[in-house]
C-alpha cells in the first residue's frame, strides 16, 4: 500500500483521453464489453484464439491507451496463470505429442494452456479498456445506474475514498514500530502479537473515523433521499457500439458451439 497513490493515479490516468471508446456512454460500455468478456470466457475451441486476439487488439487500439500500460497490467495475472499453464502439457491429455525420457507432452494439454493464456490476455485487456477509459468513480456510478444496490455502491465509493488514507496511516504505524525496534521480518510469537496489536489499533482508528465521517455525511444530506442528478447521456452512437459488441459476443458463442 506504500505506493497506493500511484495505483490511484494509474486507474484514472487514461480516463481523460479522447477516443471512440472514451466517448462511449459508460453504462452501455459496461454492458457491451462485459458481454464480450463473458463470450471470450465461454470459448472452448482453441481455433478461435486468433479471432479473439484480433478483436481485443482492435478494441484496445481504438481506446488509444498506450501498450506499455497494458503490459504493466498483465504482469501479475500473467505470473499466476503461467504457474498453472506451464504444467498442463505434461499432466493433461491423452494424445502424446512428444516424449522426452520420462516426460510426456500431451497435445490436449498444450491446447488447454494456449486457451487459458489467450483468454486471460483478452479478458484482462478488455477489462482494462472498460475501467481505464473512465474514472473509477464514474464507473461505479454507472454500475449504480445499472442497478448495483445503493448500499454496495456507497460502500465501494467510501472504501475507495479512504483506502489510501488508511494505507498511509498503517505505513506510518509500521515505520514507528520499526524505529522502536520491531523486526517484522523475523518469525516469532511476540512479533505476531505486535503485528496483531498494530492491526487492532488500525481497526479501532478506522472505526472511530467512520463515526465522524458518518456524522459529516448526514450533515450533508446523506440518506435523506435527495434528488439524484442524471449524469449519463446516451445517443445513437452508443447504441450502435453496444449492439456491435453484443452481436460479436453472441456470434462467437454460437460459432464455438456449432463449428
Amino acid at each position, binding site marked *: 500500500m506504500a505506493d497506493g497513490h500511484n*495505483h490511484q493515479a494509474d486507474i484514472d490516468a487514461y480516463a481523460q483521453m479522447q477516443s471512440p471508446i472514451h466517448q462511449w456512454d459508460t453504462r452501455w460500455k459496461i454492458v457491451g464489453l462485459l458481454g464480450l468478456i*463473458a463470450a471470450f470466457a465461454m470459448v472452448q475451441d482453441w481455433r478461435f484464439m486468433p479471432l479473439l486476439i484480433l478483436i481485443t487488439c482492435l478494441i484496445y487500439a481504438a481506446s488509444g491507451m498506450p501498450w506499455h500500460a497494458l503490459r504493466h497490467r498483465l504482469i501479475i495475472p500473467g505470473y499466476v496463470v503461467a504457474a498453472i499453464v506451464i504444467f498442463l502439457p505434461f499432466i493433461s491429455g491423452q494424445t502424446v505429442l512428444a516424449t522426452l525420457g520420462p516426460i510426456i507432452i500431451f497435445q490436449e494439454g498444450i491446447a*488447454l494452456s494456449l486457451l487459458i493464456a489467450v483468454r486471460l*490476455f483478452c479478458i*484482462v485487456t478488455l477489462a482494462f479498456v472498460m475501467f481505464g477509459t473512465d474514472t473509477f468513480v464514474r464507473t461505479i456510478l454507472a454500475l449504480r445506474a445499472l442497478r448495483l444496490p445503493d448500499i*454496495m455502491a456507497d460502500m465501494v465509493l467510501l472504501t475507495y475514498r479512504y*483506502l489510501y488514507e488508511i494505507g498511509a496511516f498503517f505505513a506510518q504505524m509500521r515505520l514507528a514500530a520499526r524505529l522502536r525496534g520491531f523486526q517484522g521480518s523475523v518469525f516469532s510469537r511476540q*512479533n505476531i502479537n505486535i*503485528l496483531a496489536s498494530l492491526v*487492532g489499533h488500525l481497526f479501532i482508528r478506522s472505526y472511530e473515523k467512520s463515526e465522524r465521517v458518518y456524522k459529516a455525511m448526514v450533515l450533508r444530506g446523506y440518506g435523506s433521499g435527495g434528488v439524484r442528478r442524471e449524469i449519463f447521456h446516451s445517443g445513437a452512437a452508443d447504441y450502435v457500439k453496444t449492439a456491435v459488441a453484443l452481436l460479436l459476443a453472441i456470434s462467437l458463442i454460437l460459432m464455438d458451439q456449432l463449428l
Partner: protein
Amino acid sequence: MHIPDGILPPLAWAGAYAVTGVITAVSLRKINQVDDPRAAVPKAAMMTAAFFVASSIFFPMPPPMTSAHFILSGTMGVMLGWYAFPAILIGLILQAIVFGHGGITTLGANALVMGVPALMVYGLFNRLRPRLTSDRSLWISGFLAGFCGVLIAAGIFYAFVIGTLPAEINQQAEINATLILILSHLPVGVVEGLFTAFLLNYLRRTRPDLIGMQQQPVT
C-alpha cells in the same frame, strides 16, 4: 489466493456468480432489516478499507526466506457479520478494477473462496460469543476462527482450480492433489490463527464492542 480470468470453464464461473449473487442478496436483506441500514455503511466501508490494508501485510513463515499474507476471512466474519460477504466482494471489485488482481469473470468464484469461510466463522463465533467469558476461551475460538478461515478458503480455492481444470486428469489424483495443497496451508493457518487470537484479545481489552462483546468491568 485469487483465481485469475481465463482459467475456469463457463459452468464454474457462471455458477459461482449465481451463488455469489444469492449470498449477496441474502446478506443485503439481513443488513436491510435494521432500522437505518445506511448508518452502518461508512463503518463497513472503513473497515473494508482497513481489512484491505491489513490483508496486504506479508509475514515471515517458519522456513527461512518464505512469507505469506493474511487472508483475514475469519476475522472479517467475527467483526463484520453479515457485512462480511459484501465487504469481501467490494474488496475484490477494487482489487480487480484498481490493481488488476483477481479477475472479472472469476469475481464470483473469488468471493466464494473468501466470503464463505467468513460467514461460516461468523455463524460459529456468534453461537459461541455468550460463552467466551475467559481469556482462554477467546484465545481458542480466535485461533480457530483464523485457522479455519484459511483452511476453508484454501479448500474452496483448490476445489475450483483443480476440480474444474482438465477433465483428462484422474479424479483420484485431483482429490489427492487438492488435499495435499490444503495441507500445505497448515502453517499459514496456524500463523493466522495465532494472529487472530492475539487480535481478538487486543480488541476485547480496548474496544470489545467491535467484536460484539461487553466492556469488562474495571476491578
